[in-house]
């Protein structure tokens, strides 16, 4: 290799490396500015009475479903519902409670896999249009991704009930179940848990993904409640890409906690974010950092039972599937669907109550039976 070539290569390498690193620095500077870290003040070690009182209520498992208005007209039988289910594991478990609720009204549910890509979602909703069911339901799909099919379904007078989204009803969607109010409630409940446990010394890391509008609602509600109940408390947000893997999330969380060793609570807006986290925090020397998870799954329940995490905020996701049926029943008899669209209460599950949470994770014990009474 000639000295001239070697020199050029070294210069080239240096330029490329410098450009790469500069890009990273500039990008990082811009992004870290967007991270919402509240400036700390002098920390005291006092509890926050309002948070403690609210948490005390959250420790009590709800015993009543959020809907209490009886359907007074006879509900038609023999309906067929096409249910488009999203491709994440949390969605997959929702088909069975929907089928169970539909059975009470002698309705049949046809499950259609919606996947996660625009193409698979498009295909699934095209199939619904082709099937011409009595009604269609979906979880986790914003209207915008199936707007053309929605217009066709509206033209065919096929009611659509959407859920687990932040859209509002209208344009063919007759009701939105487990929508904005639920996410706002969930974010508030998460904040109450953290502040109720740690009081004014709370310094939390909220792990979410603004790719999903629902997560943004939760996060905003979390921050708002934090600021409302404790102006001294800090919170930092970690915005994960939709495609982030468990390993990436863990690495990001550990880096955040290493960068700010005052963080004493990690709040995971999805259970998948918590998989492997207790062990990773422990080996990184942060065993005292507590973890709160939104929504139970087998992994996080196992963690809670063995004391690896502080708590799980049990939300009425499974119960909401009965609300889908309730909303359709109300629509079919010409009643308002508003009672089915409200937020259900959450339940703060801790180690001693973890054994009460069992698959498929109904929040209210005997929820289906309570709905049945409204439908008779």
């Amino acid at each position, binding site marked *: *290799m000639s000295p001239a*070539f070697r020199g050029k*290569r070294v210069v080239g*390498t240096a330029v*490329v*490396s410098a450009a*790469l*690193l500069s890009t*990273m*620095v500039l*990008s*990082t500077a811009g*992004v*870290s500015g967007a*991270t919402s870290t509240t400036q700390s003040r002098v920390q005291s070690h006092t509890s926050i009475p309002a948070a403690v009182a609210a948490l005390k209520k959250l420790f009590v498992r709800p015993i009543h479903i959020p809907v209490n208005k009886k359907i007074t007209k006879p509900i038609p039988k023999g309906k067929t519902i096409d249910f488009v289910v999203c491709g994440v*594991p*949390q969605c*997959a*478990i929702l*088909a*069975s409670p929907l089928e169970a609720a539909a059975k009470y009204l002698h309705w049949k549910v046809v499950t259609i896999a919606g996947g996660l890509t625009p193409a698979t979602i498009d295909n699934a909703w095209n199939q619904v249009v082709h099937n011409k069911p009595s009604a269609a339901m979906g979880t986790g799909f914003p209207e915008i991704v199936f707007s053309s099919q929605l217009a066709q379904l509206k033209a065919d007078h096929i009611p659509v009930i959407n859920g687990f989204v932040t859209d509002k009803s209208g344009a063919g969607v007759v009701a939105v179940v487990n929508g904005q109010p639920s996410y706002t409630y969930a974010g508030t409940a998460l904040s109450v848990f953290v502040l109720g446990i740690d009081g004014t010394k709370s310094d939390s890391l909220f792990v979410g993904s603004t790719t999903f509008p629902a997560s943004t609602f939760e996060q905003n509600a979390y921050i708002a409640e934090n600021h409302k109940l404790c102006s001294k408390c800090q919170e930092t947000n*970690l*915005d*994960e*890409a939709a495609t*982030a*893997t*468990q*390993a*990436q999330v*863990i*690495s*990001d969380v*550990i*880096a*955040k906690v*290493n*960068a700010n060793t005052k963080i004493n609570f990690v709040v995971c807006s999805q*259970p*998948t974010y918590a*998989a*492997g986290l207790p*062990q*990773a925090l422990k*080996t*990184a*020397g942060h065993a005292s950092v507590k973890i709160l998870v939104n929504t139970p*799954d*087998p*992994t996080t*329940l*196992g*963690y809670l*039972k*063995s004391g*690896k995490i502080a708590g799980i905020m049990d939300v009425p996701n499974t119960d909401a599937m009965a609300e889908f049926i309730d909303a359709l029943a109300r629509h079919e008899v010409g009643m308002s669907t508003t009672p089915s669209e409200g937020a259900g209460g959450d339940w703060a599950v801790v180690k001693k109550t973890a054994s009460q949470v069992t*698959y*498929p994770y109904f929040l209210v014990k005997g929820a289906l039976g309570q709905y049945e009474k409204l439908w008779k």
Partner: protein
Amino acid sequence: MTRLATLRRSLSPGSIGIIYVWALLIVFFSVWKPDLFPTMSTVRSVLNLNALAGLAALAILVPMVSGAIDASIGGNISLSGVCCAWLFQNTHLSVLAVVLITLGIGATIGLVNVLVVVVLKIPSIIGTLATWLICDSLSSAVAGQQSSLSPPQLSGSFGNDFAIASWQNFTIPVLFVLVLAAVMGLWLTQTPSGRYTHAVGLNPAVARNTGIRVSLIQSCALVVGGILGAFAGMVLAAQYASASPGSGDAYLLPAFAAVFLGATQFRLKRFTAWGTVLAVFMLATGEYGLALAGAASWIPNVFQGLALIIAIGLSRQVFSRTARVTKRPQQAGSAVSAGDGPHGTDVPAGATLQ
């Protein structure tokens, strides 16, 4: 060539560029974040959090040395992990029995790859991608309607032995990676079967003409890759104390990135165990440094992609120049000159990879 010249060549950026880039990254982040980056905590985090990626990369290394790309690794890790958890949850088998059965599942996946790649002669990248899809779907089927399986044994003695046990807060998967890399490094360079595997990967036709049983070598490599993939699946299940369908998919691309990047290192420009491990931890250092500095979640992936392109691009340039100089007196026709670089870096040439 004098000893000094050999040493100089061995230590040149073209030979061990990853170490220089790694050092550059360490210096850069240490200057940028002096209070956060140059700490033992960083070392521990980089090693602990990326040991599994190292295991996945080493699992695909053996088939790649033999000239076959094993893209089924993601599905293998997922299926093995889920099967391991399912066995704990639904049977009373001992830990040893579960481990052996799970490794057997990995070997079976390897045998399926043998059927597809060696017997049916389907190009390995396509055939093993199909195996990946099948394994992924099977992992969902085994898990049933559960989003994950989390039997208590995964966080008990099994979890401890495969993921949690630590020394100075360095977890046992780090040891697995180092031991495996050492064993594979020795096997590939110091044993006849290792050298035959390299020969098959470099040029199967020439290897066959010299009496090496190409099909047997590739079959063994695919089965070994399958078993190592299953081992990684068990470590993943133990690390998370749970197993989810599709959870291994995330390791496919980082594993390939590490193996290809590792192949640009050292003089012979071949797939090597230590080159692979170095690449895993070099990339991980950059990603962790960026995360520590508060980078948005998309930036580490950009870093990984750019680092791969730059490292391979520079190394390939250097190798091409060196090869031109050394080829002149030899002329074409030698086994090693069939490709223009290491097995992986000459994929477009297609001479050695099926």
